[in-house]
């Protein structure tokens, strides 16, 4: 007969309560205990930290941390929408609002906190809210629909999040803070002042040192907020976010020890004054402190799980450092950020022009970091946090860290905490890598590192790389599971063996059917080598999302269309045609960063008609959809400019026409500047050309975007012919040797020997390759065709440009709304609900 399992009751299914269950399941505690979880809300645990993302496109399902199914699968009883109203400690049982009684052997209170609403007359009026639950946010959303103005009471971290939510809902937004500054707990006066100015720039009005005395009927809006010593403020919606209070009602009522200002007193084992009852998270008071962040709550959950199973883990406080982006403004605070107490010295960098404020708090000896504040630039957070958490010695002149943290080499100590949300050390990650977890995603899911706030993701990746290197393992560059080759190797095989189709390539050198990684890579290789049409029958199924339809798929499944406008030069007649086409098909129209025009919102079946109109007017495809040459940006050059040294327009048009249609490992961007003023920003491009008195200077492998890289000067003072030859060689060498989806900037960084090696290949012909590279480029140039023009004249290539194979295409066009006079997509909802309704009607 089965032994009677002990009963473990968990009250609260918030983030911390759920984490406890995960820990218990991971330790197989559910085999020993019968576990029952009671949640007051109607949802299974969700990510409260990212609640505000609901206002920037997330759905509430995106926030759920688990599912009822998961609880069921693990044999845990989850009772949602159930409130515990009493605990009887003598009889060891709890009573629910429904009068049901449940017995327990061990009880865990994870009841969290509730928002503090200041005792202000009128705070209970309609359209006054708090900001804590999914239901709170839905109510706010509903109320804001008919409102014009809103105020958040409280200028702390959560208050600013709430203010951003109101702003995103289109309200004129005010923040009302009692203290003299924003985020008074984490950052100092100077940092707050910068934060305030940044937030104000976004249109949020900040009122500090305001004590709200009463809320009454307004004249110009729903509410009037009255202040002592200040003019009243009238708003339609008010959100209170003035701090949290521990939810300790149950504990009080059953006589557990409570702190003077609330909170259930716990010891290092997370036990309350009754050893059978534990308290974790924001309801718990440890050494007179409430921890209002998720990481310490998680750590209490881990300790409690261990204690319940007879272990002896102890809670020893927690790091309260935070890194966040508030309304796009980087804000972080580490450790003793306010420099409170004896023996603190401060070093400050205040760059009002750049909008950056940094402060380091160090000890008297100047060799230990005690705290830090970063506003406007979070880049050094990881390095500083590591330094703080691990007590690493500071360099001789710590003030230099204000400018550059590279002196802080990551700690190699196995005990160093990498992920403070889940308490994962460097040693934990190293052990997982050594045990065979070599993929970042797997590493994250098995160690949990980087899955809390996500702030340490880059560090997890670099530990992975270092550990792999230490194991003497080459990082696997196989293109995917179907080919045990790198892209370069496949390119070589296809070139030498004259392979022209995927079927042949996989039959000779691969296995399986192929996938969405190797197929587009192979398609790109074939296009670079043989330059056959990408929609030829054998190539069409290989093409990636955009190449497959020669257009750029947008989030709603519609497409954008970009005709080529070489160097951004366009006649008025052609510009009018663009306008007419956009008007006829009601396309959202935008000038791109590449000096051309993007037309959005075309349905799949409209693409051929749109392109027919464009081609009739003399346009060609712009390859915005391809990993190929996008644009050659240009300044107006010596034809018009008073300072122009050479004809940058003429050269840019010539280069764009030469290299258009070249398929490459990734997209290519060029620019040509007519003088050293560099108005075309050529030094941020893959290929950049700048006119000098003596010819053209060629810059290579620059990049803007996510990881900017300044281009390197490869050769100076070239004639136009020499320049073209040099570009032919550089590009073809890149096409041959780069990894898949590797931009020229990363390619050069990884090229052994770097710029000098590249120069030796393309200038000194050290590999004896140049004639071949040039011939290959000439082949591509000579076989150029406008892909859209060919497609329109080949009916079989048009077969897939239909939404439905069996019906007219007019049905079910996605929803659009208009903004600033143009059509933009409305986020679509799951059609299932509608479908069910539809069929039911049909049945009736």
């Amino acid at each position, binding site marked *: 007969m089965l032994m009677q399992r002990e009963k473990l009751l968990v009250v609260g299914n918030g983030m911390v309560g759920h984490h406890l269950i995960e820990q218990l399941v991971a330790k197989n505690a559910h085999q020993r205990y019968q576990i029952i979880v009671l949640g007051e809300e109607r949802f299974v645990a969700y990510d409260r930290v990212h609640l505000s993302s609901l206002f920037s496109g997330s759905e509430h399902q995106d926030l759920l941390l688990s599912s009822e199914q998961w609880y069921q699968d693990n044999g845990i009883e989850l009772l949602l929408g159930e409130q515990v109203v009493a605990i009887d400690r003598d009889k060891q049982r709890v009573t629910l609002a429904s009068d049901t009684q449940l017995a327990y052997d061990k009880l865990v209170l994870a009841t969290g906190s509730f928002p503090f609403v200041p005792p202000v007359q009128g705070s209970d009026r309609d359209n006054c809210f708090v900001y804590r639950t999914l239901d709170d946010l839905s109510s706010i959303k509903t109320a804001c629909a008919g409102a014009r103005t809103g105020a958040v009471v409280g200028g702390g971290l959560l208050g600013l999040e709430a203010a951003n939510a109101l702003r995103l809902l289109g309200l004129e937004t005010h923040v009302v803070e009692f203290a003299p500054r924003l985020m008074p707990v984490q950052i100092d006066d100077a940092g707050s002042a910068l934060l305030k100015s940044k937030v104000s720039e976004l249109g949020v009005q900040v009122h500090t040192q305001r004590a709200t005395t009463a809320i009454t009927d307004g004249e110009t809006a729903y509410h009037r907020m009255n202040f002592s010593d200040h003019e009243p403020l009238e708003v339609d919606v008010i959100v209170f976010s003035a701090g949290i209070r521990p939810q300790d009602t149950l504990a009080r009522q059953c006589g557990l020890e409570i702190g003077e200002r609330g909170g259930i007193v716990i010891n290092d084992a997370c036990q309350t004054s009754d050893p059978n009852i534990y308290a974790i998270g924001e309801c718990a008071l440890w050494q007179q402190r409430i921890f209002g962040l998720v990481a310490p709550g998680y750590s209490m959950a881990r300790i409690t799980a261990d204690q319940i199973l007879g272990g002896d883990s102890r809670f020893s406080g927690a790091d309260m450092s935070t890194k966040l982006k508030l309304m796009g403004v980087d804000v972080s605070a580490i450790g003793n950020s306010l420099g409170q107490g004896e023996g603190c010295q401060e070093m400050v960098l205040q760059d009002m022009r750049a909008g950056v404020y940094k402060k380091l708090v160090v000890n008297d000896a100047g060799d230990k970091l005690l705290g830090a504040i970063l506003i406007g630039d979070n880049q050094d957070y990881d390095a500083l946090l590591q330094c703080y958490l691990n007590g690493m010695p500071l360099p001789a002149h710590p003030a230099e860290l204000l400018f550059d943290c590279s002196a802080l080499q990551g700690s190699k100590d196995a005990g160093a905490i990498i992920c403070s949300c889940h308490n994962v050390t460097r040693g934990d990650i190293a052990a997982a890598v050594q045990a065979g977890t070599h993929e970042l995603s797997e590493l994250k899911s098995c160690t949990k590192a980087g899955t809390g706030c996500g702030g340490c993701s880059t560090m997890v990746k670099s530990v992975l790389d270092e550990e792999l290197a230490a194991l003497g393992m080459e990082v696997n560059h196989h293109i995917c599971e179907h080919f045990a080759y790198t892209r370069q190797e496949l390119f070589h095989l296809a070139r030498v063996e004259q392979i022209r189709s995927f079927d042949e390539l996989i039959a000779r050198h691969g296995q*399986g059917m192929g996938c969405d990684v190797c197929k587009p890579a192979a398609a790109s290789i074939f296009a670079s080598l043989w330059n056959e049409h990408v929609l030829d029958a054998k190539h069409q*199924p290989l093409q990636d999302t955009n190449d497959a*339809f020669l257009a750029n*798929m947008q989030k709603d499944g519609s497409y954008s269309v970009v005709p080529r406008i070489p160097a951004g030069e366009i006649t008025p007649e052609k510009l009018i045609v663009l306008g007419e086409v956009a008007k006829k098909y009601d396309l959202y129209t935008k000038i791109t960063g590449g000096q051309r025009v993007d037309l959005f919102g075309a349905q799949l079946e409209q693409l051929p008609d749109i392109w027919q109109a464009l081609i009739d007017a003399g346009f060609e495809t712009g390859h915005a959809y391809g990993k190929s040459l996008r644009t050659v940006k240009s300044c107006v050059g010596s034809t018009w400019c008073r300072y122009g040294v050479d004809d940058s327009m003429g050269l840019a048009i010539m280069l764009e026409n030469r290299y258009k249609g070249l398929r490459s490992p990734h997209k290519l961007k060029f620019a040509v500047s007519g003088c050293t003023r560099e108005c075309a920003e050529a030094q941020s491009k893959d290929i950049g050309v700048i006119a000098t008195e003596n010819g053209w200077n060629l810059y290579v492998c620059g990049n803007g975007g996510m990881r900017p890289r300044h281009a390197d000067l490869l050769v100076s003072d070239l004639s136009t012919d020499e320049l073209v030859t040099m570009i032919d060689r550089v590009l073809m060498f890149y096409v041959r040797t780069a990894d898949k989806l590797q931009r020229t900037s990363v390619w050069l960084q990884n090229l052994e020997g770097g710029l000098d090696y590249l120069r030796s290949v393309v200038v000194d012909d050290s590999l004896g390759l140049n004639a071949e590279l040039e011939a290959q480029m000439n082949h591509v140039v000579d076989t150029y065709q406008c892909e859209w023009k060919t497609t329109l004249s080949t009916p079989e290539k048009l077969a*897939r440009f239909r939404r439905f*194979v069996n019906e007219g295409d007019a049905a079910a066009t996605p929803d659009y709304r208009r903004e600033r006079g143009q059509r933009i997509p409305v986020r679509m909802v799951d059609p299932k609900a509608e479908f069910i309704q539809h069929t039911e009607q049909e049945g009736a």
Partner: protein
Amino acid sequence: MSWNRVCDLDALIANSGMGALVKGRQLALFYLPTQEPAVFALDNWDPIGKAFVIARGIVGDIKGEVCVASPLYKQHFSLQTGQCLEQPDVSVPVWPVKVEKGEVWVNITA
């Protein structure tokens, strides 16, 4: 359940997907000549990307599981079961298909 004639097999493109509208429901049909059966039908709705685009994804296999990659964010869905390979809690409905006399028939719940 009822069988619906959708189109001729000739109208599909080998190793590719095509959209279809059956009883008001948007489907994605995939024609893989080397598979048995050779035609697969899934809902065209991408539950992650939230758009009707599944038919426009690349087909292939991941560890032997025949699948399509969403053209939006590249999650893979099994053509046999509709299961998303990256997210165990996400799947796409799949529908029985038969090919008779060169015609493609799909059996959908309606």
